[in-house]
């Protein structure tokens, strides 16, 4: 095929191209490295004698340049024609393609998971139906212990000691029984209590629990972990207070407060005039708890902490009633 025929063929190809894709295809047809028409012509040059090379070389080069230019020009034309199309008006928005929303509790739990994953924690939800053994006894809560009063229990079978877990500490006793240290895990989980639901307390609620057991773990490590966690939750400016607090499943126990951000510790109605807001309970895992789970407390020590998720969620998302979270009061618009 001589260059004129080729050019003619190209002319008919390019004039029929109506979009960018078609132009790309034409480009490949002529310039593809493996089988382009022009590419092949130029490849063939090497097998020709010097004379022909001198004659055809510049000719092919010009042809190649012209076709490339024409392709670029066509591209520009097409681009301009889109821009000039009066129907393609980019100046007004349209409704979004529908994307779903994550429940704020899931969102909050995910953020906390992200934080703890970074520190090497596994995530374990555990079972909601539990035995007295794992929900109370192994956690140093013998029968009739006054602390069981704090958590009025929903029983499935009192005779068989089967209940709905009242806290995520039950997962701690499961974990410590099932695995050998080192253990590092967090538990986001649904819990239940036999309470009449009001705006701040539900019979159904979420807790977030963490547990670490290893050699050489002490209360300083707990403090450090909680400091970082609080900064993560409330920002670097948060002012923390650590104090002794009793929880049956730990000893020594530790309570953590953050300074009330409304009154800066002076005392106001938000913090019930305490100046501080209680956030989290924690402590060193009780000697008896480790022992009852089959871990030697003379070799291993550990800490645990637990936080109510719902209050954090309600604060962050401005939800005033816990029933809106889990009783269908909340929707997404």
């Amino acid at each position, binding site marked *: 095929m001589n260059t004129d025929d080729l050019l003619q063929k190209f002319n008919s190809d390019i004039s029929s191209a109506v979009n960018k894709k078609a132009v790309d295809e034409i480009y490949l047809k002529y310039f593809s490295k493996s089988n382009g028409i022009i590419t092949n012509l130029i490849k063939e040059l090497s097998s020709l004698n010097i004379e022909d090379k001198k004659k055809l070389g510049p000719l092919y080069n010009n042809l190649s340049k012209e076709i490339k230019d024409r392709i670029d020009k066509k591209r520009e034309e097409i681009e301009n024609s889109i821009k000039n199309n009066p129907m393609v008006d980019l100046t007004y928005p349209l409704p979004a393609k*529908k*994307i*779903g*929303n*994550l*429940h704020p*509790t*899931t969102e909050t739990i995910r953020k906390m998971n992200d934080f703890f994953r970074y*520190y*090497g924690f*596994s*995530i*374990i*939800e555990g*079972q*909601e*139906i539990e035995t007295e053994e794992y929900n109370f006894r192994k956690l140093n809560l013998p029968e009739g212990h*006054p602390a069981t*009063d*704090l958590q009025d229990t*929903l029983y*499935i*079978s009192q005779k068989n000691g*089967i209940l*709905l877990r009242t806290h995520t500490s039950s997962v701690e006793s499961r974990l410590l029984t099932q*695995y050998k*240290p080192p253990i590092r895990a967090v538990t986001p989980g*649904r819990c239940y209590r*036999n*309470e*009449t639901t009001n705006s701040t307390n539900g*019979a*159904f609620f979420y807790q977030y629990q963490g547990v*670490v057991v*290893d050699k*050489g*773990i*002490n*209360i*300083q490590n707990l*403090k450090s*972990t909680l*400091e970082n966690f609080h900064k993560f939750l409330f920002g670097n400016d948060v002012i923390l207070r*650590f*104090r*002794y*607090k*009793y929880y049956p499943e730990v*000893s*020594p*126990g530790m*309570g953590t407060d953050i300074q009330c951000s409304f009154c800066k510790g002076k005392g106001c109605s938000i913090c019930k005039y*305490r100046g501080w807001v*209680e956030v989290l309970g924690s402590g060193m895992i*009780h000697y*008896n708890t480790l022992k009852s789970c089959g871990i030697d407390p003379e070799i291993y020590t550990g800490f645990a902490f637990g936080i109510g998720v719902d209050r954090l969620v309600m604060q962050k998302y401005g939800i005033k009633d816990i029933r809106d979270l889990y*009783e269908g009061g909340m*929707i*997404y*618009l």
Partner: protein
Amino acid sequence: MKVPLIWLKDYIKINKNPREIAESFTYLGLMLDKIIDDKVLDLEHRMDRSDWLSITGCARDLAAFEGKEFINPSIEHPDGKPMNEESRIDVKIQCPELVNRFNTRVFKGIKVSDSPQWLKERLELYGIPSINNIVDITNFVMVEMGQPMHAQDIDKMQKKEIVIRRAKEGEEITTLLGQKLSLNNNQFVLTQNNIPTVLGGIVGTHLTSVDLNTKNIVLDAGNYDQVSIRKNSRELKIQNETVLRYDKYLHPHLAEMAMERATKLILELAGGEYFNNIDYYPKIIPLKKLSLRYSRIKMVSGIEIGQSRVEMILRTLGYKILNTTDKDISLEVPYFRTDVEVEDDLVADILRIGNYSNIPSTPIHNAPPKEITPPIYKFQEKLRDILLNLGMNEHITNPLLPKNNNDIKQIALENSFSSDRSALRTNIKDTLESVIDVYRKNKVKDIGIFEVGNIYTKEKEIKNIDSLKETSVLTAIYDNTELNEYEISNKLKSILSGIFSSLDIKDYVYVREGKNTVIYVNNNMDKERVGEIEYNSFSLHLEKLMDMANYPRVSHICTRIISKRTEDISLIVKLRQEIGPIYQLIKNYDKNILEVEVREVTIDENIKKDAKLVLIKIYYEGEFKEVKERMLAELKDKFNIEVRS
């Protein structure tokens, strides 16, 4: 626990202001609930420390924390006279399983009158009204030391005895507050002449109460089974200062100490003389002995604390040091510290008195252990993301709902306060469905919601926890007020297809089984039932689905150019003929068939009576003509359909 500051300062000399004192208490473990006024602190009590329900208990801790001396209340008084036949009030305990100690003393020739100002003031600040000096003293000692006490007018007793026995079923008493109670056999009463005068450990009556004419009294300090008092008071819904203290574990030695203190105050304020009387204490409970290793303090806290500092803290808190070595301290736990169980509780005391603020903060240095997150957790998270991308909103609903006696798999709760929350759901739709109404009320037309949660089922008989099952389920509901059922079901099916596509599950079928339509997934040779579908909802069992899922989605990756072609076929199918089996036959007919889509289903009387027209699009590769003919023949044969082309 209310702490009047003037009363607190009887046992510790402290100049701090109420707010500062409250802060110290907070560090010690008694968080300030609220400052009632400048005179009284209200401290939150955490159930463990029975001595924190006494002013001396609070003061002792504060003294240790502030490095001050704790001033013990005085129990010095003249000796009493020995019991004689004339003074004796007989004590008979007929339910020894409920009574650990019953210490009594008889006072004669006392003068009942108004209490002095200091006593009135303290009680009133605490919140107990002043009655007369005797009643006030029993209340004062209760708040001061934590031991409830009780005085009876001997001259009002028909028989000089106190018999403690279990109440008879239906036995009635009228309390001091005039409340009529009907008792049962789990409760116990103090009686004389077989008439109940006190509901044991809970509340008294007027029958033998002390008044201004009283001359002779019998005073008791009892120690009872706290579990029984806890249960009985909850059952009768009685909560008072006595119950508050008696439902904690008190050491029986406290009864003796309180008796001495009350004796001193009665002789001082009401005069008269006292006779020793029966002290029922058959099984003496010794004080606990523990040893504290310095190495344990280091192990738990990471801090080294000097021996002399440790000893000083323990002494101020009332521990008796028995022996010390350079490694450990042996000690006796004081009777008022019934909370102390293990060595670490002593470490807690040392750290607490040292103030938690002073503990350094050190990151964990150990390497993180192997991850043990269950795969199902990650799978649930993945599914949530898939559903969000399909435009669905996540909801979480309370799995508790009313009992349904017709549901034999339902797990019921035995003791729920609320009949609306007396069982666990056996499917998520039951609790999720109501959310749709909230959307509708807000005039949302296009509603897609889902929940990833658990359902709960049981075997016929609950033998143990293994008879009960929690299953992880995803349920989605789609609703659109502008669409009909057919259109809604199409929308729902496309959401479901989206899930399968995201999980790279290709081989799934929906099969009608009786009233339900069941979702099966085939994987190699397995056929797994993974869920159910209704016209506006579906549920997927996540453990099963997870086994069938493939990700990353390998089979979607294409590195060659497929010359995909299409062919439309129109079938006239009987109205009641389900399209699923036809679809399956076509889809699995030949390896050249890549995809099959049911494009349109129309019912038109003009085509044929009782029939529907089904338009199917087939994507194939390579030769199809001959395959198509064979396939259509088989369709005609199997499903009695007509082909329209």
